[in-house]
Structures are given as C-alpha cells and as structure tokens.
C-alpha cells in the first residue's frame, strides 16, 4: 500500500517542536494534497506527524483514553473522506485539530461538563488545602481540569502536545499574540488556584462556591462553539 515517493522521502527539517511554522504547515499541505491524489504514504506520514499530539489533546481535554481513541479514529476517517472530493485544504493541521476539537466539545456537552471563561469561578478550586508538594501537584492537575475550555486547550496544546504558540495560532486561526495572551491568562488563573490551595484559606471551605460552579458547569456554553 505504501507508495515510495522521492518527495516524501526527502528529509523533514522541522516538526511540531522545532523549526519554522511555515515550513511545517506547508509540508502538511503538501502531504494532504498528495494523499488526495492517491498517495497513501503521504497519509501515513501525516498520521505519524499529528496523531500523537492529537491523541494527547483528546485525552487531556476529555480525561478518558477510550473516548480519545474513538475521536482520533473518527477524525482520521474524516480526513480519509477528503479524498473523495476536490477540496483544497490550505491548513491541514488546523483542519485536523478543529475536527477533533469539535468532537471533544460535543462529547463534553453530552456529559454536561462545560465551563466558559465568563462562568469561570476561580474560587471554585482547590477544594482542600494542600499540605505537601505531591499533594500540591495533584491540586494543580485538578485545577487544570477545572479551567475554562479555551484556557485549558491552549495549555494542553502547548504543555502536553508540544506545539508552540505560533503553531497553535495557525491551528486555531488566531493571531500568535492572542494565543499568547490567552495562555498567560490561563497560567495565571491556574497559579492563583494553586496558590490559594497553598495558602489553605480560600478554597478549603468554599463548598458553596464550588457547588455554584458545578451548577454552572452543566451549562452548555455558546461562546466556545467555534
């Protein structure tokens, strides 16, 4: 099935973690175009380049490995369907990411777990005081899960999937400055929550506040439905 191609065998100078963004994405566009023209090897290379990051993103956003596997599988099947048409995709990584992202959002909506930035209550977490370093780390991870979706996904793409902010900007079709600002706000919110747990004051007995946020979390936000 794999078809040897001189172009595809050319050394790849850049990847998701290194090199220039433009070269990475133009390589993706070339691979997708070749795949649409019948080159299965191009699809395999595209899969190898993006499937690990895509899977990590889904796992961290959904918090469930089985669901993440299903969504990544469905996403790649949708990519395969592109071969039936003549659609020209200029931003393949963005397309792949948005397909997975929309599927994750749909899954989160079915669960009824959804927080928008406006509804986010930074006092909701932590629910208890952290007494040791490892416990503080657990609080940090829990706080990450409770961040608004827009904040969390930027941190996940950067910290877990290894994408740079400019690459994330291309994928999300935003400016790098906007993504950088969003990431800074997300990190700041996360830090405040963990610092509050460290102080042992604000989030410990704030059960009422956390219950309020949990009620808000069931609301399906409209703002992030991109």
């Amino acid at each position, binding site marked *: *099935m794999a078809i040897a191609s001189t172009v595809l065998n050319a050394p790849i100078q850049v990847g998701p973690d290194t090199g220039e963004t433009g070269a990475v994405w133009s390589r993706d566009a070339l691979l997708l175009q070749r795949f*649409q*023209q*019948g080159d*299965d090897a191009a*699809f*395999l290379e595209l*899969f*190898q380049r993006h*499937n*690990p990051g*895509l*899977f*990590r993103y889904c*796992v*961290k956003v959904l918090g469930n*490995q089985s669901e993440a596997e299903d969504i*990544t*599988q469905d996403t*790649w*099947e949708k990519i*395969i*369907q592109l*071969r*039936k*048409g*003549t659609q020209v995709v200029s931003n393949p990584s963005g397309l792949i990411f948005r397909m997975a992202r929309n599927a994750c959002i749909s899954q989160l909506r079915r669960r009824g777990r959804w927080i928008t930035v406006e509804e986010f209550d930074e006092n909701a977490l932590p629910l208890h005081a*952290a007494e040791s*370093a490892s416990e*503080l*780390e*657990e*609080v*940090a*991870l829990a706080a*990450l899960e409770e961040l608004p979706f827009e904040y969390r996904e930027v941190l996940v793409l950067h*910290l*877990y999937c290894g994408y740079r902010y400019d690459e994330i900007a291309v994928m999300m079709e935003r400016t790098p400055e906007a993504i*950088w*600002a969003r990431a*800074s*706000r997300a*990190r*700041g919110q*996360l*830090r*405040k*929550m*963990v*610092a509050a*747990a*460290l*102080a042992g004051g604000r989030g410990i007995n704030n059960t009422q506040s956390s219950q309020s946020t949990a009620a808000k979390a069931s609301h399906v936000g409209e703002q992030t439905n991109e």
Partner: protein
Amino acid sequence: MNEQERSRLIERIVENHLNESERAELLPQLGEGTNVRQELLAEQAISRAIARDRQQLPVASTTPSPRLLDALSNAPVLPSAAASFWGSGGLLVGFSLVIVVGVGLMLFPGLFGISGDAAPTSREVPPAAVADTSSSIPVVIPSTSSEPNEGKKWRREASPSASATTKGAAKTEKELGNPSTPVLDGKPAPPTEHQGQQPQLPVFHDNSGAMPISPK
C-alpha cells in the same frame, strides 16, 4: 507590569532554572509579600505536575489501526485525481492539442502520411501531353498557357471533381512549378503550338506508340 508580563516573569523564574544571581535580579520586579512566594511555589508545583502527568499519559500509536487502513484502502482515488488533472489545465492542453493536430493535418498532410499527389495523379490530367516513345513511362507535359491560371481553369472545366481535391492540385502545381513555365527534363519547355489556343484533352500513348489512349 501588567498581568501577562507578571505571569511570564514568574514562569521564567521557575522554569528556566535561573541561577541565584539572575533570580535575585528578577524577583524584585514581582514585588514583595507572601503572595509572591505562594505564586512562585504554585508555579513550581504546576510545572512539576504537568511534567509528571505528561510522562504518564498513554502513548498514541504511530501506525494507523487496521480499521483505518481498511478505510484508506477503500477510499477512491480517481475522482479527485481526474478532477485535479482536468481542473489544472489538462482540458485546455488536450483541446489545444486537438486543434493543433487538426490544423497541421490540413496544412501539412504529408507530415501525417497523407500524400497530396494521390488525388491529381488519379484524376487530374495536364492539358497537354507529348508522348515520349523513348521512355517506358508516359511523360506528361503541362500546359504552356501564358495565363497563369489557365491550367486551373482547364482543370475546373475538364474535371468537375477537381474541386474536391483542391489542395492536392495546389501541391501538384507547387511541386511542378509555375504552370506557365513547365519544366521538362530540368529545362523550361519550349512554347508549343497550342499556346494561346483552347487547351486540348491530353492524349496518352502506350510504349509502342501505336494506340493512343484516351484519358476518358
């Protein structure tokens, strides 16, 4: 310093593993107080937690699943490939090629293996012929009419079907030269007694010269 710059500064202090002197230079920019210390500790905890969690994440496969490979093998290729070919100018190139070949066929039939001599040798006969009994092949001598188009005029009168082979006739004239100055054995033929008169039907003779052969 706004919130974003402050956040970035905290990240730098914690993540970049600065030495003590560098850290001592940056810390005053954050201000003083217990909140600063808590923020730094929180940032350290976040960094460690994410690093640990990243290592514990399940690893994605770098090879597609059998189901995905099956879908890949069943994905049709032709519509997209064909559409891209025709859409990328293949249709224009193909159409242009047909036009070029057609025009070339009309102008230069010899290049395509079609002889322009076939039509005149079968049907057209020059207006005058002189038998050369010394040769085994009958020699055709074209008209010596002073009018340049006399030969054509004669052909139109003598052979109504000649109009269907105009190009063949034109080629024949071209190969033979101007009909008003016919060439015989490499030399211009001398004026004949038929010059200025109505052209006569040619007469062929067989090798023996005994029996004239009518072109009809």
